Structure formats: structure tokens, C-alpha cells
């Protein structure tokens, strides 16, 4: 869009807007562990968003999408949360340009977007572990997928975005030109520079909705890291699940799956008739019946062993569909209920490649801690992007899902220390417990972000529980930190 010296300002809405109902409801993240009460405003249009912003009080507003952040990023105790999921229209598609681009409202989910684009042979460039996230959320958390080492995170593919700012105006920002600072502060900015209302995203082309996948089972963590270090560049997509329960000789044994997009010629004849068909089986919704200790020694051990041995020792060129390859968990809606009412947290960190020893120590700490995690992901990141709060950096990243139990805080604090020592960081979209001083050590470019935020939102109108916890809010005369 425009590279003009002054960001393009779309005509602002009239001052008088009908009041949107804002019921006080409990909001929590996907981990369900630290809910608070926010006023949830259902936003159907830009006018609604402006109105809700102008009517907010000193507790501020935070944009919210599908609530897949694990922690407290999209909740705002005592303040307002803008539910943007109804702003879910695909506005335009430019399939002829190179690359093709799509312009969407922020509430469009990646699921909806992917389904809409596939028939045109177009592909969403970055898909995280679930398709049930909004485009706005994907930008605000700068999400990454299995192709980070080759294609970067979501922000790398955003051409421009429309941001509703604290002054009540909507501006169009681009990655280059005079709006670049605010653009990159918004990528990974957790909704604290403003509310993303829409974006134009560059797309990839694909012949099929299938992948050619190679699977390898490795005996331990060392074999896994060695294999990944050597072969990853041959694959667009690469990720490993590892066993975080088994100790000793086979610690960190893993199933490594890597693949590339399949061409029509790669498909078996049966699939060639409809190569862009999207297969998304659903196994239903988990009911709210699980007790707190569903994940215990016995179930975690059984699951981990089964998952490991279910995978072939070595297989190449298997054709897998999107759900099999990308999003097995999307088959079960509300799967987070399996952790019971206490909820869980996801700990995801990255450390630079040269700190492989620290990475191994972290893994060892988790495995030996007695805290049990079944959904464990290990991956190599490629280069990061210019966003000051973006999570990915070149290095090893590891993710574990840990049910909330006695002593978990100690384990996470110890991991933090190791991660900080190695020059690494924790992913904010997953975080629900980091302290402000530790966070500061993990994100050395924080001050750049805060400088932009002070400029565009001097009173801290955009605010969230996460912002208060990590002291990302500007001090206001009223005193809120």
C-alpha cells in the first residue's frame, strides 16, 4: 500500500456510536490456568471497534481472536477485550500477481483462509500447530510453523496491515517505508500497539493439498539433533515429537517428520482427481469431564511409548494430508479439557545453536523433574525477522505441555535461568507465568518496542493481563504499572 511520509489515515468514525454491550465474563487462555474477568465487546465492524476504544476506561482494551494464546495475552481484567472473530471477511484476492496476495479482516481464521484459498491452488505461507487462530492473532504473536527454518514466521509474509490505534484512527502500515517501525512493533507486539483490523498477506502456490513426508525414529536426543542439523535444509517442513517421560539411555528419543509439498505427479492415481481436496476429519469435541490428574505417570508413559513405536523406524515419501501432517490435534475440538480444571501451561523456549549443551540440560531437567508432558515438540529455527518482540531466532526450540501441579513454578524458574544464561527466550504466546525482570533479560530489544508503544499509545490504552504482568504498560498518572 502506501509508503507516504504520513501514514494513510482512513476517515475516522463519528464520535457518537451506539454503545456495544460489554458483559463482564471470565476470559482465559488455551491453558485455562489464569482466568480473569473482562468486559467482552462483540466487534462487528470498524465502527464498533472505534466506539469500544473510545468508550474504554483506564483499564484499557485488548484485541482478542480465537483465544489460542496459552496464557493471559488476550484478556484484560477489569478492562475491555475486543472480540474480533466476527470480523471474518475475505476482502479481496489477487491471484495473478507474483506472489499472489489476499486481503482479509483480522478475525478470519487460518482454517477459513486455507479452505478458501486451496481451490485456487494458493497456500497460507505459515501454519502454526492449529488452524484455529485468527490472522490478527497470527500477526500479533508472529506465529511460526514447521517451515520456519526455510520460510520464517507469519510476519515475514505480511505485506501491509490496518491498525486501529489509541487515538481512534485506523492506519495502514507496511514493512518498509516510514511506517516500518510501527509495523514491526505490531508484528509479535501482542496487541499492544493497537488492534489489527485487517491485513494483506503474500501467498504461496501449490498443486496439491498433500505432502511427501519422511519419517525417522531416533534412539535418543543426540541422534535426533544430529539428524536435524544435517538434513533439515532438504525439507521445507521439519519437526520432531520427542518422548519427555523416558529417562536414561533413551532420553529424548523422538519421531522426526519432515516433508515437502507434493506435486500432482507425486500423488497416487486415486488422489490425482482432486489434488486440492482438503481433508479435515473431526473426532468430535472433548466433554468437560476430565479430572486434574488425567496425565499421570501411567498414562504419560503409555502414551509416549505408543506414540514412539507407532511411528516407522524409517520411511520415505509417504503422502500425508494437511491434518495428518500439520494439525493432528485439530481433529479434537477443546482438547485442552483433558488437563482438567487446574489447566496446564506450555513452556516453549529457544536457545541459539551454539548453546546446544544448555538445550540438552533443559531437556534433561524436564525429563527428570517428574512433571509429565506428552505433547513435546522440537524444531530448528531459521533466521528471525526485524520485529523487536518476535520470538523465533536461529536456534533450537522446544515445547512441552505441563499440567499445573505442585512444584511446576520451580521447574519453570530453573528453566528460565538456563534459557537466559544461554541468550535464549520464552515465547509470549505460550507464556502465562514469566516475571517482568526475567522477560526483560530474554528480549534485549524490548526498549525499542516500548519506545514505539510510548509514542503511539502514551496513556497505555491498549493493555492486557500479560502487559501488566510483564510491565509492558506505560505508567499512567492513575498509577497502574
Amino acid at each position, binding site marked *: 500500500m502506501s509508503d507516504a511520509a504520513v501514514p494513510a489515515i482512513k476517515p475516522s468514525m463519528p464520535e457518537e456510536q451506539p454503545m456495544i454491550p460489554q458483559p463482564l465474563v471470565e476470559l482465559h487462555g488455551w491453558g485455562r490456568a489464569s482466568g480473569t474477568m473482562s468486559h467482552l465487546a462483540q466487534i462487528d465492524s470498524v465502527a464498533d471497534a472505534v466506539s469500544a476504544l473510545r468508550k474504554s476506561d483506564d483499564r484499557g482494551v485488548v484485541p482478542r481472536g480465537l483465544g489460542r494464546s496459552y496464557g493471559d495475552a488476550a484478556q484484560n481484567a477489569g478492562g475491555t477485550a475486543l472480540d474480533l472473530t466476527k470480523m471474518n471477511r475475505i476482502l479481496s484476492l489477487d491471484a495473478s500477481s507474483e506472489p499472489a496476495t489476499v486481503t482479509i479482516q483480522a478475525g478470519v481464521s487460518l482454517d477459513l483462509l486455507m479452505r478458501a484459498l486451496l481451490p485456487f491452488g494458493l497456500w497460507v505461507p505459515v501454519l502454526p500447530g492449529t488452524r484455529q487462530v485468527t490472522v490478527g492473532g497470527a500477526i500479533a504473536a508472529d506465529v511460526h510453523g514447521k517451515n520456519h527454518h526455510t520460510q520464517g514466521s507469519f510476519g515475514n509474509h505480511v505485506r501491509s496491515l490496518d491498525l486501529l490505534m489509541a487515538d481512534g484512527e485506523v492506519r495502514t502500515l507496511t514493512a518498509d517505508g516510514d511506517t516500518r517501525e510501527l509495523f514491526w512493533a505490531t508484528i509479535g507486539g501482542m496487541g499492544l500497539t493497537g488492534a489489527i483490523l485487517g491485513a494483506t498477506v503474500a501467498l504461496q502456490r501449490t498443486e496439491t493439498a498433500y505432502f511427501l513426508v519422511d519419517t525417522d525414529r531416533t534412539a535418543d536426543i543426540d541422534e535426533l539433533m544430529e539428524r536435524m542439523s544435517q538434513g533439515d535444509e532438504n525439507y521445507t517442513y521439519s519437526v520432531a515429537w520427542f518422548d519427555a517421560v523416558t529417562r536414561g539411555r533413551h532420553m529424548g528419543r523422538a519421531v522426526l517428520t519432515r516433508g515437502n509439498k507434493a506435486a500432482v505427479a507425486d500423488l497416487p492415481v486415486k488422489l490425482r482427481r482432486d489434488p486440492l481436496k482438503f481433508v479435515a476429519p473431526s473426532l468430535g469435541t472433548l466433554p468437560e469431564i476430565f479430572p486434574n490428574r488425567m496425565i499421570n505417570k501411567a498414562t504419560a508413559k503409555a502414551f509416549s511409548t505408543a506414540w514412539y513405536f507407532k511411528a516407522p523406524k524409517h520411511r520415505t515419501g509417504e503422502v500425508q494430508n494437511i491434518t495428518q501432517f500439520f494439525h493432528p490435534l485439530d481433529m479434537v475440538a477443546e482438547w485442552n479439557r483433558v488437563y482438567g480444571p487446574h489447566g496446564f501451561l506450555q513452556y516453549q523456549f529457544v536457545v541459539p545453536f551454539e548453546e546446544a549443551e544448555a538445550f540438552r540440560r533443559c531437556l534433561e531437567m524436564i525429563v527428570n523433574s517428574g512433571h509429565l508432558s506428552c505433547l513435546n515438540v522440537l524444531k530448528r529455527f531459521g533466521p528471525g525477522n526485524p520485529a523487536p518482540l518476535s520470538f523465533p531466532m536461529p536456534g533450537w526450540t522446544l515445547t512441552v505441555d505441563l499440567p*499445573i501441579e505442585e512444584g511446576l513454578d520451580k521447574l519453570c524458574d530453573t528453566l528460565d535461568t538456563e534459557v537466559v544464561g544461554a541468550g535464549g527466550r520464552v515465547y509470549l504466546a505460550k507464556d502465562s507465568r514469566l516475571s517482568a525482570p526475567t522477560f526483560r533479560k530474554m528480549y534485549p530489544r524490548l526498549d525499542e518496542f516500548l519506545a514505539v508503544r510510548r509514542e503511539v499509545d502514551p496513556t497505555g490504552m491498549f493493555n492486557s493481563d500479560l502487559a501488566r504482568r510483564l510491565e509492558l504498560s506505560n505508567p499512567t498518572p492513575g498509577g497502574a504499572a
Partner: protein
Amino acid sequence: MINAVGAPQSLLLLGGTSDIALAIARKYSRSGLRVVLAARASDRRTAAVIELTSLGCEVTEVDLDARDHESHAATIEQAFSGGDIDIAVIAFGVLGNPEQAWRDPELALELAEVNYTAPIHFGVLLGQRMQAQAHGWIVALSSVAGERVRRSNFVYGSTKAGFDGFFLGLGEALRDYGVHVLVVRPGFVKSKMTSGLDEAPLAVTPDQVAETVIDAIKSKRELVWVPGPLRVVMSGLRHVPRPLFRKLPL
């Protein structure tokens, strides 16, 4: 905000030099925890600041005078000037000599003001703040003495009875706003408040009370006894007929 693993970021201790309040702060202490100590300026307060600071807490001192009602609003205002309060503990109180308390009108008035009037005044002020921030805990240190008031310390007991009822009710009123009130009913606590008194059965230490408070917040309970078995004892005692109750050595 109390984070996903139950660690608060900020504590307000009203009666910040009380043994129980300090035991709670010690157990929660970690690097960066913000603690507001509201108490009368004293050497004890200074000592508490030094201790909590050495544990990594960022401590601020605020003056609190329970009997100066005019000052309460400013105390709360200052306490919240650094941001949201996750857990506010109401821990101040006086025991008084029980036989003097029902004969000396001044002492009776002091007990009523410190143990009842001031706490409900602070309770309302805290309630407003917490309702606006829509999260947080108010921990009200009550006593089993208020559960069934007995002859041996009925002035104190009656103030705690009122206190207890108020905070149970406040908890109900604040439920829908995401704010929790925890009423704690300890038995005999071995602390500076009870020093010199004969120890009662089932006596506990301030540490045990603190432990119970922390567990209760973690599991979102809103009424606890310390030690736990007192709940059973008290539910029995509540129903003992007066002529018999009178004869019990309590």
C-alpha cells in the same frame, strides 16, 4: 495477576508487622514480588522491610492507623499507587485482656474499632479497588473465637464474629467480579499477639496459618480453619446448648 502457577506479583499487608502476614509474605517471596507493608511506623516495620527486601521483594511502606478512620482511604490509595494488588491480607487486630475488656469501656471500644470497624472500612475500600481491577484476593484473618463466642473472651470474640460475617458476605458480593475473599479461622496461634498466654489445644504457628492460606488460594477455597480439624471441633461446639457450653473449660 496471580500467574498460571499460582505466584502473585503483588501483596498488600494491612497490619504488615503481624506474624501471620509476614509469614505469608515470606512464603510468597521471590525476586520482583511487590510487597506493600501497611502498618504503624515502628522498628518492627523497618525490620520487616529489611527482611523482605533481602528475600528479593520490592517493598514499599505505607502508614496505617486502624483507629484513625479518616486516614484509611489514603492508606488504600497509596497501597494501590504502584499498580494492581493481587492479594490483600487484613491481619491487624488486638486481643486485649479479656476480663479488662468487658469492664473498661475504652478498651472495649478499642477492640471494636480495631477488630471490626476498621476492617469493614478497609474491606469496603479494598472491595471497590478490587472490583475495578476485576481480579485479586482479600484474605481476612478471622478467628474461631468468633464462630461461637464464649464467656472467656467474648469482647474479642464478638468483634471477630462481626468481622467474619462481613467478609463472608463481601466474598459473596464480589464473586461476580472475579474477586475472591478468603476467610481464615485459626485457633490459638503462637505469635506476638498471644505471647504470655497459656497455649490452647490444637495451637498452630504463624507459618502453619500462612501455609493454609497459600493452599487455599491455590485451590480457590474461601473459608478455611487452621488447623483443619478445628472445623469439625467447631461444628460440634456450635450446637452445644448454652447450659452445657457454660461448663466447658474453654
